């Protein structure tokens, strides 16, 4: 108990001073993508210009995380060798490195790579997830492995592969693994790796949304967007407090929280009637006989298959497919949505807490929304952007191109009055944060990029497919 209290105090102190400008996890503090402290962030730069330092890392798409002078990144340094690398964020010098044999890597689908999960840093330790290693905690100072907690292998009907990332809340590491087999959310003691609680999320299909924290009405919830439902959990027990049943089938984006409101933007393939069955019959029914045979699925799903095969004829047909894989209480389809949902609820808040919602084609299926100031900004393939009033969802602009084509897997981030949009083609488009779309610059990082950059120490940390760059204006 003494230790917990001490640590809470340390966290609070760090949280308000030394780490005020840190970028501790995917998209920074609480995954907002907004840096509140960094100043004088660069507008014009490239992989050759305003590079304070750069290092080759190895292949990967996880975001770098920063706590003051420590930066942690991950990479595949060989085909079956995973590395956790701690660098000095000021000069790029390596402080420590830990490498692991990975073995038996899971099947993944591009643009996913094996080193895709973003670590989380709390000032003392860094917590890292890797598919075949589970959750690992390292001492941030010397890189010693503090604990390792095995995580059940994730299975995906459509072979997307694992890419889930942990977060830290108080003295817990929270990890949500929504796969197609046995989705769950888990809290571990961040000092020991012992399980505090585990909650099954059996209604969920595979998804990659990171848990976010929302405090509303004096109630702090761990909020997770998943298939069809946005759910709030009690951080102490992991018990579900509320559910808002307005989402879509596949959720790969992470919500943004501003104040007591959670903002979700999602594109999920197909229209609202397109439940999972259609995707499975399209891609997994190899012989196209309109039914799924066991052999057409990964062996991991055979138990689910058996449950769904009601007439025991050895095939899943029609609604049997739905019943095998999609929860009857959550038979949602695809579509496009942008929603604002008030946190702090209890029970089913579907009818009570949705502040506004749009059926709008602006969202990406992968790049998360950015709420900066009073605006919600989204960008999708083709560099097509839209911006909405965060208060009421009113359109500020829609279908406007940021003049950079291609895919967008990284999520937009903001700082110093600018919005940074990283394209998969390696160009970072810099926009003015404001009510009109204004492109300030388009900067070439020389290599494909899927990872969302980090902002800290008045610098941008950009992790391209194989390298890491620290970009900053000259210190005057």
């Amino acid at each position, binding site marked *: 108990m003494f230790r917990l209290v001490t640590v809470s105090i340390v966290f609070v102190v760090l949280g308000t001073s030394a780490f005020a400008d840190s970028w501790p996890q995917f998209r920074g503090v609480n995954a907002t993508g907004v840096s509140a402290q960094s100043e004088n962030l660069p507008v014009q730069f490239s992989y050759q210009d305003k590079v304070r330092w750069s290092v080759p890392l190895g292949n990967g798409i996880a975001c770098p995380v920063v706590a003051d002078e420590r930066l942690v990144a991950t990479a595949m340094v060989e085909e079956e060798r995973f590395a956790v690398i701690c660098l000095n964020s000021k000069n790029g010098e390596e402080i420590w490195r830990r490498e692991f044999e990975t073995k038996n890597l899971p*099947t993944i689908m*591009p643009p996913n790579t094996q080193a895709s999960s973003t670590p989380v840093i709390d000032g003392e330790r860094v917590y890292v997830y890797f598919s075949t290693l589970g959750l690992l905690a390292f001492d941030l100072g010397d890189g010693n492995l503090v604990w390792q907690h095995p995580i059940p292998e994730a299975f995906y009907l*459509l*072979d997307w592969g694992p890419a889930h990332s942990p977060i830290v809340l108080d003295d817990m590491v929270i990890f949500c693994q929504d796969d197609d087999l046995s989705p769950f959310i888990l809290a571990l003691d961040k000092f020991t790796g012992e399980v505090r609680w585990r909650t099954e999320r059996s209604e969920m299909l595979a998804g990659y949304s990171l848990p976010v924290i929302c405090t509303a009405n004096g109630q702090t919830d761990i909020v997770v967007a998943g298939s069809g439902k946005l759910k709030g959990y009690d951080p102490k027990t992991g018990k579900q407090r509320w559910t808002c049943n307005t989402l879509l089938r596949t959720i790969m984006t992470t919500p943004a929280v501003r104040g007591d409101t959670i903002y979700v933007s999602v594109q999920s393939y197909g229209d609202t009637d397109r439940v999972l069955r259609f995707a499975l019959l*399209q*891609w*997994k*029914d*190899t*012989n*196209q006989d309109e039914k799924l045979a066991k052999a*057409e699925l990964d062996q991991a799903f055979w138990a689910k298959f058996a449950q769904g095969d009601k007439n025991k004829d050895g095939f899943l047909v029609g609604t049997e497919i739905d019943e095998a894989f999609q929860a009857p209480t959550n038979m949602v389809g695809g579509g496009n949505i942008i929603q604002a949902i008030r946190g702090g609820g209890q029970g089913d808040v579907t009818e009570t807490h949705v502040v506004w919602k749009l059926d709008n084609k602006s969202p990406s299926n992968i790049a998360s929304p950015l709420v900066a100031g009073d605006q919600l900004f989204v960008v999708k393939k*083709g560099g097509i952007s839209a911006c909405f009033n965060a208060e009421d969802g009113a359109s500020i602009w829609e279908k406007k*191109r940021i003049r950079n*084509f*291609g*895919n967008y897997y990284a999520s937009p981030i903001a700082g110093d009055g600018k919005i940074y949009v990283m394209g*998969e*083609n*390696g*160009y970072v488009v810099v926009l003015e944060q404001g009510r009109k779309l204004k492109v300030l610059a*388009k900067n*070439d990082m*020389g*290599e*494909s990029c899927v990872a969302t950059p980090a902002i800290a120490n008045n610098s941008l940390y950009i992790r391209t497919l194989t390298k890491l760059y620290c970009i900053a204006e000259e210190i005057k």
Partner: protein
Amino acid sequence: MILRCTAAGLIVFWALLVSSSRAQEKIVVVVGANAPELEKFAAAELATQWERLYSVDADVSTDIRGNRYAVLVGSPATNPHVKRVLDGSWPQVSDQGIVLKSYRQGDVQGVVVGGGSAVATLWAAYEWGYQHGIRYMFHGDFYPVSAPADYTSDVLNLVMEPKLRVRTWRTVNDFAIGPESWGLADLQALIKQLAKMKFNRVMLSVYPWQPFVHYEFGDVKKETAMHWYGDKFRVDGDVPGKRVFDGAAIFENPDFVGTDSYQKKMNAGIKHARGIMQAAQSLGMTAAISMSPGEFPREFSRALPGSQEVHQLKRLTIGPGPQVGPDDKLFRELVSTKIRAFIETYPELDALYIGMPEFPEWSGHFEEAWDELSGGDGEINGLTLAEVIQTAAERNLIASAERGIQAIKGNIAPLAFFKSLFADQELLKRADGGQVQLVLRSIDPALYPILDQVIPRGAATLNFVDYTSRRVVENRQLLAEVPSTKVPASLILTLADDNVGVLAQSATSSIHELVTDLRHHGWEGFSTRYWMLAELDPTVHYLSRAAFSDDVTVRSAHDELFMALTGKRDVADRLWLAFQYIEQATTLIDEKDIGFGFPVQGMLMKHYSGGPAPAWWAEASELYTKAMIELYRSHDGTHPRARPVLFYYAKRSEYVLEYLAAVSAVRAAGVAKAKDDQDAMLEQLEIAVESMYNAIDTLSDVVRDQSDRGLIAVLINHAYRPLYGEYERALELADQ
């Protein structure tokens, strides 16, 4: 304590047991002590295959050395062990015949892997691998998903003779999407794979402006050395796909990077070409060069008074003009100089292919040339000049009507010239005293009935009927006209055409028809024609099998390849559909607009016009969509090891869809422009830019060779940049 010791002892005992049983899993690959190097290489290849397939130790030796299982490599003439176990039962085989025969003699059993020559033995080694589930593809070997049955119960008795004895792989060519972009290291790897598929000749098809030969005539020195018709491909700046070029500003053949002078280019070019030839010969293939003797870079216009520009992309060459007759001494000397330059530059050359011009313009002397060819009779085997010309005019080929007449006239003069020129036996003599084989290429089909009469004595022919295999099938009766018993004849088999060009292509069904005809009519073989390898693995796999067997069908070859690769019947079935759709799309494009995807400047913006979009564009798009769905479906259902291969195909189909979307949008923009509807024009141009961006980006996800990079370079420069330029102009206009 006792327990722990006992446990430890058990572990040691188990380890000894395992290692001793492991030690028993040993075979020997026995090769004759004086066997040719190629047979020794075959033995090493076999040992590697055995080790990977059966996880055994396979040593190569000249002695059985007490082993209970011995693979005997070679023939009775090269390996005494083969003579001992099979002498009485060694089958009669030609120099290309393959023998795989199990044997048991005393305590020793095994298999004889041999052939009628060293290279045939090498092919036998690969055939043994094939029979045991290994599949050889362009970019590597695929071993069976599960190990084959116990080799000691394996009974083999296989004798194979080729049905087509000349199996030529063409390389170099002329576009950035083709092998002209490939470095030697990549080509060496490819040639190794081709040897496994029993190709027996590599032919370098070179052009007058390329840096592969230097010659001088009088005071004129060759000074032109360029690739790709002189095109330069910038791949830097804000363009899609640049990630595949590793930061390079310009796309280049890696063997020519930094060659900034004629001399450096020539040195690199000769090293490159010799490297290809040596790679082929080291694997038992013959090496050939195909060239156009009557075409020269423009600087030679000074050396040949009365020369004329040759009709060709960029008009880079000259040839004899109307005043130059077939007996022109100066022209004869110039041509001889060029031919000698090739033979002296490439002392390893086995065959020289002399190409007839693609667009024959040296036609002015056709009547006197015909007289010469006919020995003054006016008829050759009863055919008159008028009849031959009439045939050329009335046929159903691209070169018909006026173009057909021009083609036949433009063939007759060079043929008379060559017949006289190559009467000089010294012309094709190598420094080592050997004679380079002469092959005449692309003689007009109207001359097929008299082919043996119009070519130099002893020459072979390589025949070109039309651009696509489908078109040749439509004119397959022409193949029967070649007197194949009198003149060795091969056919140019177009696997993928440069006119259909940048789109995914397949023509395996047509090729099957042609291969069937070639076997039926007694042709000697074939030479491939292609630019990208892309979708060609199934086609070339088919060819490699059909060249040795009458029973192979397109479907049976497909199944043999993809069942082994993917491990699943259902997946092979879906892939069959996918390639059928691609072939249907190829046929559609070939029928409707053969030059639709020709990889040259203006390839996209030629669609920027006001006419309605042809209906077949949507049909092609639908076919490629179906192909893409089947390919992704196959990808999802396959054994994981085949995924990269299927993902490549799927992405290529996806790319084509984006390309077609860009073309449609360009046309829609053109229509809007014609109507002076600026908003619609801008909107459509934006869609076109995005689609072309996505097309290139999609390709960039699955680059596996220099042709893939070359395609991206071509699309960036010939499609994306001009389109983007137009888009920016439209934006400026809209801002005004």
